[in-house]
């Protein structure tokens, strides 16, 4: 049944094309059926595929489906081929299932929007591209999916195109990620030039055979790929687009800007982990970027007023965790956190969507006391938030984060600093999460609730709640059950976790500290933002800085945007044209000058004749 693989891409793609071409003439029902149904089918297909895969693993734990040779030129032969192994299978399941739930949610959520068909066309196209990205067997096809999801992200952020700021946010997202993509593309050139292939497995195979660890070319290759990953996953220094991307419809934020697309960078690095292992310095850089981003975004999240922006910064921060894990060499931990994050962050976004839909407000400081009226949303927030903040034992987030935190000490690249940073991050996470919940759901109710949820919304929320709670049990640490099922499953692809540093900080210590951090954060949040406190946004300088995302936007505006605009404005009239027009002017000048000789007077003409004669004779005299 593995042959069904291509259908997982083809079904959503076909549906997207269909919706784009004749979506306007279909009824809403048909659109919903097509839009959500296609992703449902894809999810079903991937379920069948994974069942087959798990039941009887193909040789080498991998399966390749060749469709056709994309292009073939001078030894460059990328194929359109899908590659299935445990890592891509995991991603496939996450994308299709979370994707399906979000589509289901959107059927109801977007019901009254005029661009219903357009929305589903974009979303389906996104799912198709994302799956292509995940399943690609070579880096070029991955790049296709990579750009495809970028396009869909752009389209969906600017979905409500009448608002200029949405349009701006969309292009910002596209352009900023393109910075990373450019590096990625150069990375592809480098890889192909040195290794003569872009097939991912082959690349890793040849790289480890030909390159010595820490060699310049390996570092360059890894750094360039990292550039791509940083852009797509909104890590420092290219993180600025993601908060603005919240301009898109909420399901989009859930699917693209939380659960799937933004984690593509993590996937890419995990996918090509051999290259990073060959470039220890870059890998260490990954860890640093992850840690820094994580802290930076967490601080920003504390100061945000817009509910979706809190979640956006939280996403950046959580991906920072994943990057940290990647940098530590804890590949499977990163993938684990990617999965659980997909569940609880999608849940949080969808729940936020319910809230926003209900009160038509995104400013946390204008909300409050919504607990009673939006019961499902409240509980979703509590469950999702707990998972995000790492409520011990019963939430998925706890297990995945715990693994990373422990590895930040015990892993090959681990050290105490990373551990401390990780713990700080955990504290901050807990703080901003519960700040959000407290501000939105507790205190005095200020807004009137306008909408009630239908079945589709409820089902998707409940399923995601369930996943956020139990998703962590697939891989439990030794002290809490000790069933590292996921890690084992991924081990055929990703190197297993190693414990290099033993010593004061053990697994247990880490788990306990993380739990403490959770509690501490919760407590702090309650003290500062609890129902009894004054509910005014703070105005001190630091918080202003956090609110503005550490001023990166301002900085880039001054450093890049304005100079470039100045350049385009100045050069728009094409300076090269000037000398050429000047030449024309000179010619005309020549005409004017010569015209003066045509006086019309016979005596002058005769003089010309005479002078010419004299000149010729003179030349004859001089030259002989």
């Amino acid at each position, binding site marked *: 049944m593995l042959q069904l693989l291509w259908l997982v891409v083809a079904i959503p793609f076909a549906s997207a094309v269909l919706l784009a071409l004749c979506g306007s003439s279909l009824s809403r029902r048909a659109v919903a059926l097509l839009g959500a149904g296609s992703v449902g089918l894809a999810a079903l297909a991937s379920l069948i595929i994974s069942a087959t895969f798990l039941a009887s693993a193909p040789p080498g734990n991998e399966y390749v489906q060749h469709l056709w040779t994309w292009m073939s030129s001078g030894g460059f032969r990328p194929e359109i081929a899908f590659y299935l192994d445990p890592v891509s299978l995991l991603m496939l399941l996450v994308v299709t299932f979370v994707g399906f739930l979000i589509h289901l949610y959107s059927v109801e959520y977007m019901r009254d929007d005029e661009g219903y068909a357009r929305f589903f066309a974009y979303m389906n196209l996104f799912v198709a591209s994302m799956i292509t990205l995940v399943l690609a067997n070579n880096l070029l096809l991955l790049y296709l999916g990579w750009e495809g999801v970028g396009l869909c992200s752009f389209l969906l952020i600017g979905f409500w195109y009448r608002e200029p700021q949405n349009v701006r946010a969309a292009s910002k997202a596209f352009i900023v990620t393109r910075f990373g993509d450019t590096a990625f593309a150069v990375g592809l050139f480098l890889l192909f030039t040195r290794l003569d292939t872009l097939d991912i497995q082959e690349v890793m195979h040849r790289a480890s055979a030909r390159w010595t660890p820490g060699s310049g070319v390996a570092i360059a290759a890894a750094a360039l790929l990292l550039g791509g990953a940083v852009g797509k996953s909104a890590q420092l220094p290219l993180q600025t687009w993601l908060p603005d991307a919240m301009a898109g419809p909420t399901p989009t934020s859930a699917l693209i800007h939380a659960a799937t697309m933004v984690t593509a960078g993590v996937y890419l690095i995990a996918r090509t982990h051999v290259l990073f292992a060959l470039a220890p310095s870059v890998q260490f850089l990954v860890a640093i970027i992850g840690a820094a981003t994580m802290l930076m975004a967490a601080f920003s999240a504390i100061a945000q007023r817009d509910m979706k922006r809190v979640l956006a910064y939280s996403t950046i921060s959580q991906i920072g965790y994943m990057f940290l894990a990647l940098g530590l060499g804890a590949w499977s931990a990163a993938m684990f956190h990617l999965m659980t994050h997909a569940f609880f962050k999608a849940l949080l976004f969808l729940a936020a969507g319910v809230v926003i839909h209900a009160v038509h407000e995104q400013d946390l400081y204008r909300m409050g006391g919504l607990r009673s009226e939006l019961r499902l949303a409240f509980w979703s927030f509590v469950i999702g938030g707990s998972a995000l903040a790492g409520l011990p034992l019963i939430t998925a987030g706890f297990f995945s984060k715990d693994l990373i935190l422990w590895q930040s000490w015990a892993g090959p690249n681990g050290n105490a600093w990373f551990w401390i940073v990780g713990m700080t991050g955990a504290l901050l996470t807990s703080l901003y999460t519960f700040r959000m919940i407290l501000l939105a759901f507790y205190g005095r109710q200020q807004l009137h609730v306008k909408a009630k949820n239908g079945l589709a919304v409820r089902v998707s929320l409940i399923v995601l709640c369930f996943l956020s709670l139990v998703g962590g049990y697939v891989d439990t640490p030794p002290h809490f059950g000790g069933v590292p099922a996921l890690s084992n499953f991924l081990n055929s692809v990703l190197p297993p976790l190693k414990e290099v540093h033993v010593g004061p900080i053990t697994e247990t210590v880490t788990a306990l500290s993380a739990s403490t951090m959770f509690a501490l954060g919760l407590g702090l949040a309650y003290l500062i933002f609890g129902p009894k406190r004054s509910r005014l946004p703070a105005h001190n300088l630091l918080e202003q800085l956090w609110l503005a995302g550490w001023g990166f936007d301002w900085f880039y505006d001054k450093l890049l945007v304005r100079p470039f605009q100045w350049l385009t404005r100045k050069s728009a009239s094409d300076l090269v044209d000037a000398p050429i027009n000047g030449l024309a002017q000179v010619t005309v000048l020549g*005409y004017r000058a010569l015209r003066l000789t*045509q006086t019309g007077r016979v005596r002058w*003409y005769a003089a*010309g*004749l005479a002078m010419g004669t004299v000149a*010729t004779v003179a*030349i004859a*005299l001089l030259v*002989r």
Partner: protein
Amino acid sequence: MNHPDFAALLPLTIVSATAVFLMIAIAIRRNHKAALTIALIGLAAALGSLALAASVLPRQVTSFFILDSYSFFYMAILLGAAVFVLLFAYDYLNCREEQPEELYLLVLLATAGAMVLVASRNFASFFLGLELLSVALYAVIAYVRTESISIEAGIKYLVLAASSSAVLLFGLALIYSESGSMELSQFTTAMTRTAGHANSFPVLAGVMLVLTGVGFKLAVVPFHLWTPDVYEGAPLPVTAFIATVSKGGMFALLLRWFHVSRGEIAGAPGLVLSILAIASMLTGNLLALRQTNVKRILAYSSIAHMGYLLVALLAGGTFGAPAATYYLTAYIVTILGAFSVMTVLSGSRWEAASLESYRGLFWQKPLLAAAFTTMLLSLAGIPLTAGFLGKFYVLTAGAAASRWVLLFTLIVSSTIGLFYYLRIVVVMYAQPTDPGTKRDAPALPISLPATMALAALTGLVFLLGIYPALFWDTIVAVTRNLG
């Protein structure tokens, strides 16, 4: 002088005789149509006699004439051009008050002069031919006595041509006094650089003075100043005649005696000719750049085209002479076509000279405009027209002789030239102005002969541009024996 000599001179004799006969006929009774017929018959007979006399070639007749295939070839071209000029002159004169008949007479005489030039091998015949041509031209330029610009043009041409003749004569006298010979072939020797032989200064100066006279007739810079005024002032058919027969005859002479096929052109004459060529190409094209009078544009363009011809002449070698001949032929055909379109468009009191009178022509008379476009594109040297192949041959000759500076100037200047040809084309294809504002009188219906002549010229332009193979062979054969 014996029988074959007379046969060889037959074409010249016929043209002159026709002139005399026409004079008598006019004296007896004025009839426009008859005059045209007589003139045409005479020209046709001369053309026919060319074929007849071809069997006795080549032949030197006395010390004055050399009659070979080269001179016959050029005579044929000149006669043909004269035929076309007369055909258009008929329509042109028909609607004017002047007594038209004498024009034919004068044109015949001028043609005879040009033919003498082509065939001359001696200072005396050179001078006679030149003056026959010039004196007849003085009269025809000012032919339309009612136009003051016509008279002005006549005066200018007279004064300047006479002065240049004087200079030329002085040059001839200088050479004669140095060498004691009146043979034109001295020029070839003077032009050829041979080891151990240097031209004495009087000879060199003489050559220069002769070049002045020749350059005046050809209108190369700096002896070009008369051209636009005379072109503008003369009646259209006469302008066409100056542009074709007068210049053609003179260039044939220049080509015959100044062309060097083996070796290099000697220092000073070569240098002077190069300077003249470069100056002509640039000046001519620049001066035409923003002209608004089409006749003046064509005048300036003729200056440039003479420059191109000089390039071919300077190139020499195996390709120089054929290339120049081809180019000249193509130019004559094209410029005849252009002037004939202008003649056809002109009204009874009014010549289609200003650029404005061509506005929107294409949308009113598409065929006429298409013909004119063809001519302009041929002048600009766009493929499929005669002008392109002409330019191709000139470039080939230049490249074969490695005359890079000249070629480069040619390229640049012909690009400048393209600009003003395009200007005319643009005007023709632009939106027509409001009807009834510009034209004082509706243009006359085009007569059948004119139509046919125009069609023939257009056809020739394309024929020369598309299938030059046969013609080229002839030219190569004809020019094989040049110095």
